[in-house]
């Protein structure tokens, strides 16, 4: 079975530069993020502010997230944004106007997910509490400011 285009459309198609690639670019641009397809939007929206998520113990000493939680800081941050977006949307708010309670709820949801992934052998024996923090960096007055970290969630280390 073969599909043939109307003659005028076929002529335009024949003249298009890099047409196979253009077709794929157009397809990816429209489809966006539907695995395995992607429009690769990383760092397409740049802002004067950026934040990270990290986990500490009860004394605020950082824990190596890859080794302990099988989830990196970047992945945790993306999960947090997704949770926050869902929570604030259901409360009729925009992501930018999320309240501290919304942020804490999103933090608890992220914490609940990543503690499921704990590698007990990688968890230092001295750790009894886990705290999830959000730290923001901002470009202001010609310098890079590190804002005070915000504690989003805290819970005891689950027993295996």
């Amino acid at each position: 079975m073969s599909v043939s285009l109307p003659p005028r459309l076929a002529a335009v198609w024949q003249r298009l530069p890099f047409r196979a690639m253009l077709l794929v670019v157009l397809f990816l641009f429209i489809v966006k993020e539907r695995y395995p397809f992607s429009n690769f939007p990383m760092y397409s929206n740049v802002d004067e502010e950026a934040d990270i998520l990290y986990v500490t113990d009860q004394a605020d000493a950082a824990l190596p997230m890859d080794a302990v939680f099988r989830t990196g800081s970047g992945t945790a941050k993306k999960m947090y944004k997704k949770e926050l977006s869902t929570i604030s949307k259901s409360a009729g708010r925009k992501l930018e106007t999320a309240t501290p309670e919304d942020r804490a709820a999103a933090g608890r949801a992220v914490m609940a997910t990543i503690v499921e992934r704990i590698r007990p052998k990688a968890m230092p024996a001295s750790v009894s509490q886990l705290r999830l923090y959000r730290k923001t960096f901002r470009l202001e007055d010609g310098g890079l400011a590190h804002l005070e970290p915000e504690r989003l969630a805290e819970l005891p280390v689950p027993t295996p």
Partner: protein
Amino acid sequence: MSDSANTINRPSWQPGPFDWSALEMLLMRAGFAALVFYTIKWETGAWTTQKFPNGIAHFLDLTWIGQSPPGLGLKALTLGGLALYVAGWLPTLGLLPALFFSIVIGTLGNSQGAINHSTQMVTMMLLAQFLVYLIPRGPGVEKPADHWTRPGLTAQQQAIWWSTVVIAASYVVCGVVKLTNSNFMWLYDAPYLAVQLLKTNWSHYHDTLEMPPAWLQTVTQTLVDHPNLARLFFGAGLLVELLGFVVLINRRWALAGGLAIIALHLSISQVMSLNFLTHIFATLIFLVNVPGWLMARRPP
């Protein structure tokens, strides 16, 4: 080194498959098979839910693969299929297990609330090759039965060609999206990326507890102090992405474009601790194609 008659007779803006030799393509397939197997995130145990479904997870429950990660038997089946593909026998059937696990595992991984972009390009290349082997099409391609059992040189060149098309399209769309998502202000706003540099390096610190090198702080501050330098630095990367289509023109452009893409990834890796090894290896295999250049230098 020459390009195929097919390519030579076309204008550079309407390129087609290069004159890859059978041996060259055998080596490409071997490299790609290894890359595909490495790219599949076989350790699926952490993904027991799909709270934020993506792709086919919107209508299929894929959590079974998180609850029962593929064992040695299924990995061996995938490797066996990839071996068939490398040998050029029954490639449609051979690629099927790898394609299945790439899509199912990749989709489940991306349904956890965080989209990761390290595997999409390789999976799309795999899908493109699968479709070329599945659907016999174009002049010089054998009858379906022969095409499916042992595709000839033309079909193999098409499979490689569509892989390079996927690479080119991935970079071009990435550049286009930077422009459209920022209302075409991306280059102007590029100095803000210094904040992203700081973010990714602290993010990497919290992943590993390894402090970023001291020079990175200097680089970040320099980009803040000199916005036009930041525009030049990040603008060069944007240009590499937007001009990604040149790798389709001929072998020389593929080499030059491929090296530029690798340089882009290595610099991102250095300053942002973001490693796109799968993209680097795909580029090395299909665009830089060292064996192809070495074969061309060999005396007849």
